[in-house]
C-alpha cells in the first residue's frame, strides 16, 4: 500500500496527536495514584500504631478516592503500551531490544504487586489481619512507584540513549549494558523528579479537599489532621522535586541543548546567559533575529549559565547556534548533521545491496564501520552514526520544537512548584498556630490549588516531551522514520474515538469524585441516608 508524502506527514502528525492525547489523559490520573497511595499508607500506619478508629475512618475515606482515580488510570494506561506497536511500528523494532525489557520487568515486578495487593487493600479490611492489610497498602503504593521507575527508565533512554550498540544485520539498537540503561543519570533524575512531583500533586489534592471540608465546617478534625500529614509529605517531596528539577537542567544542557534553548527561548548563544523569569515572546521571525526573544523581560543575570553548567560565565548555546552551527564553540550545523546522518544510513543501504548481491567483502566493510570495538567503528560512530536520525530530516528547521509551548509550560511548572513549597510551609504554620480555619481566604486558595497542580504536572510533561521533538530517540530516530505505515484516516478515527471515550470517562470520574467528597467519610453510626451508592438492597 503506497501512501503519498502528504498522507505520510499526516500520519506522523495524527499519530503524535494520538500518543500525546492518550499520554495526557493517562497522566491526569497517575500522579494522584502515586502520591495518594503513600499518603493513605502513612495514615493507615498511624491507625495501626495508635489503634485509633479515627485514623481507620480517615484512611478509608482517602482510599475511596484513591480507588476511583486508580481505575481510570489503569483504563488509560493500557492503550499507551500497545500504541508503541500500533502507531510506532518502526520505533518498536528499532528500540524493542532495549525499551521492551523495562516494560516487561515493569509488568512482572510492579503491575502484579499493585494489582494483587490493591484487592486486599480494598476488600480485605474484614478478611485479613491488620498487619497484612497494612502491608498490602504499602505494597500497593510501592508497586505503583516501581512501575513508574521502569517506564521512566525507558523514557529516559529515549532522551539519552546509552548502553547499546547498533546491529546492522537486524537494523536495530541492541542492549550491551543493562546497568547503564537502568542507572543512567538521566533515568535516575527523571524518576525522582517525576515521582516526587507526583507526590506533591497528591499532597496538594489532599490539602485542597481538606480545605473544602473546613470551609463547609464538616469533619474538621479529619480535615486538619489530613492536612497536616499531606503538608509535611508534600513539603518534603516538593523540595526533592526542586532539587531533581535543578539536576535535570544540568543534564539537559549536556544531552539535549535544543530543549534547554527552547525552554529559555534563547536564540543567540552567550556566555554568562541570564535566566528569564518571565517575558512575552515575540513572533517567531523577530525572536530569531532580534537580541531578545521576548518583551517585558524579567531576568536574573548569569543565572542560566550557573544553573546549567554550575558556572556563571559558561557559554549556553542558542537555537540559532544549534541550527546554523557555531565553529568557535565546536557546534556542527544541522545541515552538516543531516549530511553525516545520510552517510550512516547510506552505509546501511550499501549493506543491503551487498547482501542482495552476496558481496561478502562489502558486507564485512560495512560491519566493521558499525563495530563499536574497533577503532574504525569508534570513529564512524563519533563522526557519523551519532547523527543517524538527522539523515531522515528534510530541512534543518525540523529540529526546532514548538518554542512558545515549551517556554511557557516550563514557567508554569516551575512557578507552580515554588508556590506549592511556600503554600505547604504557610499551611503548616497556620496549623501549628491553630489559625487555619479562621483564614478562609487561604482555604479557598488551597482548594483552587488542585487544578493548578494538574496544570503544572501536565506542563512538566510538555516540557519533557514537546521539548525533545522531533526525536523519538534523541538524534537517532525522528518521528517521521518511527511511525507505522497506516493511512491517516485510520488514526483519525481512533484518535477521535479515544478522545470521546476518555473525555466521557473523565467527566464521570470528576462527578464521582465530587460526590464521594461530598458524602465524606463513612458515618460513625450506620446512616443509610448518607450512603446512596451502596448495593441494591431494595431488591
Amino acid at each position, binding site marked *: 500500500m503506497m501512501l503519498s508524502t502528504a498522507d505520510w506527514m499526516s500520519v506522523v502528525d495524527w499519530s503524535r496527536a494520538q500518543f500525546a492525547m492518550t499520554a495526557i489523559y493517562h497522566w491526569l490520573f497517575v500522579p494522584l495514584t502515586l502520591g495518594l497511595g503513600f499518603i493513605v499508607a502513612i495514615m493507615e500506619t498511624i491507625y495501626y500504631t495508635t489503634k485509633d478508629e479515627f485514623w481507620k475512618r480517615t484512611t478509608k475515606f482517602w482510599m475511596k478516592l484513591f480507588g476511583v482515580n486508580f481505575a481510570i488510570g489503569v483504563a488509560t494506561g493500557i492503550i499507551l503500551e500497545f500504541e508503541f506497536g500500533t502507531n510506532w511500528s518502526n520505533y518498536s523494532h528499532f528500540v524493542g531490544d532495549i525499551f521492551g525489557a523495562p516494560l516487561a520487568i515493569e509488568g*512482572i515486578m510492579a503491575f502484579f504487586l499493585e494489582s494483587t495487593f490493591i484487592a486486599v487493600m480494598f476488600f480485605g479490611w474484614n478478611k485479613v489481619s491488620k498487619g497484612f492489610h497494612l502491608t498490602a497498602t504499602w505494597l500497593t503504593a510501592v508497586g505503583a512507584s516501581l512501575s513508574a521507575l521502569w517506564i521512566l527508565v525507558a523514557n529516559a533512554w529515549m532522551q539519552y540513549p546509552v548502553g547499546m550498540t547498533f546491529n546492522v544485520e537486524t537494523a536495530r539498537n541492541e542492549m550491551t549494558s543493562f546497568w547503564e540503561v537502568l542507572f543512567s543519570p538521566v533515568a535516575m533524575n527523571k524518576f525522582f523528579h517525576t515521582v516526587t512531583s507526583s507526590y506533591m500533586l497528591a499532597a496538594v489534592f489532599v490539602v485542597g479537599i481538606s480545605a473544602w471540608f473546613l470551609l463547609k465546617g464538616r469533619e474538621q478534625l479529619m480535615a486538619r489532621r489530613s492536612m497536616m500529614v499531606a503538608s509535611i509529605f508534600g513539603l518534603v517531596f516538593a523540595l526533592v522535586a526542586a532539587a531533581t528539577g535543578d539536576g535535570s537542567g544540568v543534564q539537559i544542557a549536556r544531552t539535549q541543548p535544543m530543549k534547554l534553548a527552547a525552554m529559555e527561548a534563547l536564540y543567540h548563544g552567550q556566555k554568562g546567559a541570564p535566566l528569564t523569569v518571565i517575558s512575552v515572546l515575540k513572533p517567531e521571525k523577530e525572536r530569531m533575529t532580534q537580541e531578545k526573544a521576548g518583551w517585558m523581560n524579567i531576568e536574573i543575570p548569569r543565572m542560566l549559565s550557573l544553573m546549567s553548567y554550575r558556572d556563571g560565565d559558561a557559554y549556553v548555546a542558542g537555537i540559532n547556534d544549534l541550527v546554523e552551527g557555531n565553529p568557535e564553540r565546536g557546534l556542527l550545523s544541522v545541515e552538516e548533521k543531516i549530511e553525516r546522518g545520510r552517510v550512516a544510513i547510506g552505509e546501511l543501504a550499501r549493506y543491503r545491496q551487498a547482501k542482495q548481491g552476496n558481496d561478502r567483502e562489502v558486507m564485512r566493510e560495512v560491519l566493521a564501520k558499525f563495530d563499536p570495538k574497533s577503532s574504525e567503528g569508534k570513529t564512524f560512530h563519533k563522526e557519523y552514526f551519532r547523527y543517524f536520525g538527522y539523515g531522515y530530516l528534510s530541512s534543518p528547521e525540523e529540529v526546532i520544537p514548538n518554542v512558545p509551548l515549551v517556554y511557557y509550560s516550563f514557567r508554569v511548572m516551575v512557578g507552580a512548584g515554588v508556590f506549592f513549597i511556600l503554600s505547604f510551609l504557610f499551611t503548616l504554620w497556620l496549623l501549628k498556630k491553630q489559625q487555619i480555619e479562621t483564614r478562609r481566604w487561604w482555604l479557598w486558595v488551597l482548594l483552587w490549588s488542585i487544578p493548578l497542580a494538574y496544570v503544572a504536572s501536565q506542563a512538566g510533561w510538555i516540557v519533557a516531551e514537546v521539548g525533545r521533538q522531533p526525536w523519538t530517540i534523541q538524534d537517532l530516530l525522528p518521528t517521521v522514520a518511527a511511525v507505522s505505515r497506516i493511512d491517516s484516516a485510520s488514526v483519525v478515527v481512533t484518535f477521535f474515538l479515544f478522545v470521546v471515550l476518555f473525555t466521557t470517562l473523565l467527566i464521570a470520574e470528576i462527578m464521582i469524585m465530587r460526590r464521594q467528597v461530598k458524602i465524606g467519610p463513612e458515618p460513625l453510626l450506620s446512616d443509610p441516608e448518607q450512603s446512596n451508592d451502596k448495593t441494591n438492597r431494595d431488591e
Partner: protein
Amino acid sequence: METYLFLQHYWWFLISLLGGVLVFLLFVQGGQGMLYTVGKSGVERDMIVNALGRKWETTFTTLVTFGGAFFASFPLFYSTSFGGAFYVWMLILLVFVIQAVAYEFRRKADNFLGEKTYEWFLMINGVLGALLLGVAVGTLFTGANFTVNRLNLANVGGDTAISQWTTPWRGLDALADYRNWALGLAVLFLSRMLGAQYFLNTIDDKSIRTRSRWQLWFNGIPFVLCFLLFLVSIMFSKGWAVDPSTGVISIEPYKYWHNLLAMPAVFVALVVGVAAVLTGILCDLCREESTKGIWLSGPGTVVTVVCLFLLAGYNNTAYYPSLADMQSSLTIYNSSSSEFTLTAMSIVSLLIPFVVAYIWYAWRAMNRKKITREEILSEDEHLY
C-alpha cells in the same frame, strides 16, 4: 543447544505460559458476559460483580505483561502485528479500556453514564475481549498479510517502514478464516465455562449456583465443538517450517501434526490438559455439591494453551506465518531480542515463582470466605 537458541526457546515458553495463564484468567470476561443470564436480580448481579471485581485486575495485568513480554522478547512480532493488524488490536484495547472503569464506577453515585451502561461495558468486554483475543491468537497458526524488510530503514526519503500490511483490512482480514473464528469462539465459550465454575467456587448462593451449572452445559458443548474444529483443521493444515541453519522458510503439509509427533511431551500434555478441562467441567456438572471443578479446568486450560503456543513456535515452525511473503514469516529465531537482552530478562524472570507465590497467598487470604448475600448487603463502602 547453544545459549541463544536456548534463550529463544525459554522466552517462547514464558510467552506461552503467560498466554495460558491469561486464557485461564479470562474467566473474568466469561463471568462478565453472563452478568444478566446468571444474575437475575440486582443483588445477584452485585454478587457476581464483586466476585469478579477481586480478580479483574490480575487478568488485566496479565494481558499487559503478556504484551510487554512479547515486546521485550520478540519485538519484531510486536512491531509487525500491532502496527499491521491495527483495527483488531485497537478494538481489543477499546473493550479493555471500558472494562477497567466499569467495576469501580458502576455503583457509584453520579457516575454520569448510569449503572446499566457500565454493565454493558462489562458484557461487551466479556464477549468481545475473549473472542477477539482468540481470533488474534488464531493468526499464529493461520497467518497474516504482512511483509518485513528490516533494511527498509535505509530508504531515506522513501518508504522506511520495516513491517507493512498488504491489505487495507488491517487485521480484520483474520475474520475471513473460519479457523480463527473457531479458536475465537472456543476461547469465548471456554471463558464462560470457567466463569461459571468460578461462580460455583466463590459465590455461596443457591440460585446463582443452579444457573451457573446450566451455563456449563450451554457453553461446554459449543466449546468442545469449536475447539475440536480448530484443532482438527489445524492438524490438517499446512504450516510454515523454517530451516534454522539458513533461515529459509518453506511450506510443510500437516506441519502441526508433525510437531505433535516430534514433541511427544507436548502431545501428552495437550491430551492431559484437554482431559483436565473436561473432567473439571464434568465434576461440576455431575455432582450437585461440587464447587471445585475450576481447580482441574483452570490448570487444564493453562496446559492446553501452553501446548498450542509451543506447537505454533517450537520445532522450527514460523509462529507468525506471512501470507503475503513467505520469507517474511516470523520465527522465534528471526524475531527475538538479542542474546544479551534475553539473558538479562531471564534473570529477572527468576522472580516469577515469587510473584506467583504472593498472588496465591493473597488470593487464599481473600477467598477464605465465600461471597454471600449478607456480605453484599453489608455496609462496607468498598464493595463494587
